[in-house]
């Protein structure tokens, strides 16, 4: 039997303590121990980006991070990217542009797109495609996702 550990982290802006198995990935812990099921599992292998979160502000695949590693750090999931009472511009753009079909890849794309726009507010199409190449979407062909990120970039400039 494996050991349980207590982890404390800033989760979507609030200090959160939880108990995890020492073998839990961050993805396991977020979904199964804390109940933040907005973080999706697509491959559990670092290949699809569905589990993307920000760890200390950096985009990571949470299936490739051990839960124990986030002790004392900060984690942002899709549940934490909306502004108070208002969707984040990238969330709104995904809705307006019909950039989701089944929606399972959407949380990962939203977190990745936010991370891009945080550092590069006016990315080119090429930059968006390159940045999002770590996120797989099987439904949309990516067209409307790219357009949505472009729209989000524009609407964030206006603000």
């Amino acid at each position: 039997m494996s050991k349980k550990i207590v982890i404390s982290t800033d989760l979507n802006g609030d200090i959160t303590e939880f108990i995890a198995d020492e073998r839990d990935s961050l993805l396991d812990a977020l979904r199964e121990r804390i109940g933040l099921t907005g973080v999706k599992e697509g491959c559990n292998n670092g290949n699809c980006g569905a589990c993307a979160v920000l760890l200390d502000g950096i985009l990571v695949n949470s299936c490739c991070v051990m839960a124990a590693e986030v002790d004392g750090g900060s984690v942002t999931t899709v549940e934490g990217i909306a502004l108070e009472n208002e969707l984040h511009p990238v969330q709104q753009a995904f809705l307006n542009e019909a950039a989701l079909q089944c929606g399972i890849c959407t949380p990962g794309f939203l977190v990745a797109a936010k991370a891009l726009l945080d550092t590069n507010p006016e990315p080119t199409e090429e930059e968006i495609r390159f940045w999002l190449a770590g996120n797989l979407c099987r439904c949309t062909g990516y067209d409307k996702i790219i357009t949505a990120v472009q729209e989000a970039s524009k609407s964030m400039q206006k603000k």
Partner: protein
Amino acid sequence: MVSTQKKADKTYKVIGTRPVRPDGVDKVTGRAKYGADIQLPGMLFGRVLRSPHAHAIIKKIDTSKALALPGVKSVITHKDLPTAADAALNLGETTDNLKWISDKVLAAEDALFHGQALAAVAAVDKHIAEDALALIDVEYEILEPVLSVHTAMDKKTPSIHDNMKTVDMIARFQVGEISETQINNVASILDLELGDLDAGFKEADIIIEREFETGTYHQGYIESHNGTAQWNENDEVTVWLSTQGAFNARDQLAALLQVPMSKIKVIPMEIGGGFGGKIPMYMEPLAAIMSKQTGKPVKMHMQRDEVLLATGPTSATYIKVKVGAKNDGTIVAADAYLAYEAGAYPGSPVSGGGVSMFMPYAIPNVRALCLDVIVNKTKTAAYRAPGVPAAAFAIESIIDELAEKLEIDPIAIRMHNAAEEGTRRHDGVLAPSMAVKELLEEAQATEHWNAELSDPSIGRGIAIGAWGNGGMESSASASINSDGTINLNTGSVDIGGQRASLAMQLAETLGVEYDSIKPQVVDTDSIGYTAVSAGSRTTFATGIAVIEVGNKIKKQIINRVATFWEIDANALKYNDDGSVSSPDKIINFKEIAAMLPNTGGRIQASIDIQATTHVPTIACHIVDVKVDEETGKVDILRSTALQDVGKAIHPAYVEGQTQGGILQGIGMALYEEYYYDDKGILKNASLLDYRMPTSYDVPFTEIILVEKPNPGHPFGVKGVGEVPIVPPLAAVANAIYDAVGVRPNILPVNPRRLSVLLKEKNNK
């Protein structure tokens, strides 16, 4: 990116607009609950032990050590499943047999493919469940695997299923009698013939015969299969899962678990993609049995390697086609031989390929001989226009070659041979109205088709394809609230925006605002039978159900207002804006809704329909590629898709379906493939090695929607989901030929394969 819509004549208020989908906010905030998101008190986690061999007799399974591990609550093998009858089961897009499904769920006497489930474990957490798998001892007698259709059909090869006889198919999905032709490891034959082939080929000035192969492709939905079951002490079972059809899942579970259908409640959770692959049952019945044994809910969630190994990809295929034409381009005869891998159990979509490949064309003498071949690989399942992309690759490559040899424009030759309403098809059907010519005319007029190619290493290809679409059963119910809002329930799983497309059709029917309708997908206890969200049928067939519900409500409203106003119902008119008027009075929808409670009660209506008026749709893909002759790498530079959709209810989701289908087709053409070694072991069971296209691989696909309404749907809907995946394989292959002068005959044409072809060309 440009997107154009060639509009059908009639104008609508709601239909054709692009509102935000009702489930959108839940899906961009992470609140939407998909199958694997379910959490229940006391829940156990299940895992499956899988065969490391492609073909082996299972001599013994010893689960005692696994059971002894603290935290493990249940370990099951095939003997824990109820005995399954050897009988056919209709699964919507494909048919199956209960014994085979049962053996696929947990192997009985032998393992027939790498990854076949042998045992399952439920434990208090997933790490312990995984530890327990390592403690199960299995003794195998390893047998030689059969890995290609050619080996399988060879007389010297042993039969994979001892008692299996080749049966004749009467039509797609319709199994007939035992065939006069018995072929080793062939489960079924469909032989479609029209006219006189010999006479046809005699008339031909040119005959081209070619062989083609395509690889095994997975649907690649990003959400893995999952299922959670609670078996109650009164033998009622509740199952939460991601499925394309809740009723289909319920009926399979009822048969497998031998529980009455009414005692199983399937709650369809949000589904993370399916493309045909989320129809069969895999570990859901195991979760149910382990819940029965432990009294606790059991959740199972496949790992990605399990999805690739043991769910149902599409068939690898071998296709030989011979086409004869006159010098003016008239195709006079076509003869196709299609052998599709079914996997370890019968049921490939070969008949879909054989029927659909010639659908766009009027050919007087045609044959398609379709063979469903058993091999030691995972059982295939439906994948978007099942069976058609490979077959269209074959015929569309040959038509491209015909056009080249006869010096006819590739669009002109297709136009010349286009099927029309009333064309007799080789499956006996008279072709209904299709838009082959309209689509080709639009293609001819595109800026893309007419643009100069900037560089000799760039080539342009075009191909078309057809898909028959589906009808089947659907139910819907709606109730009017006293504030004028409406709740709409259907049993159709929302796999890509159907809540929106259904709510829009009800809004249009009733003349109310889209936002006033709250559409919901409900469980199998709460609505009438509804078939799978597959076959491009949901917006079409469940759409008809929703419109009928709207019409019923309208009638009831008219009667109610008539009573209220003490006037004859025939004197009343239901107006486009949802109001009801007599010659001298008018009452709007909100006012009607408000008066309902005190004039006989609120109104609700429900309906079940069986849609049969579906018609085929046509798609076309134009693509520019650049080939690096040194490495064999192909880049997509430009892509335009044209599609006849009947009527686009929500054009943005229609475009999205098309773009997604095109990209899956490009994946089939260039990147994706299962790699089995000579022992039948799948070597690339991960999303790194099973290479699906990323956003960086492709440009935007320009979309041109052509709307030639389906007379069999009140708004003209045909169905959009499947057909776009059909043309890209040949379009890309034809573009490669245009660029470098070699015709790929095996897909995917990855750099390795293309390099070989280029070398052969240069050595000539």
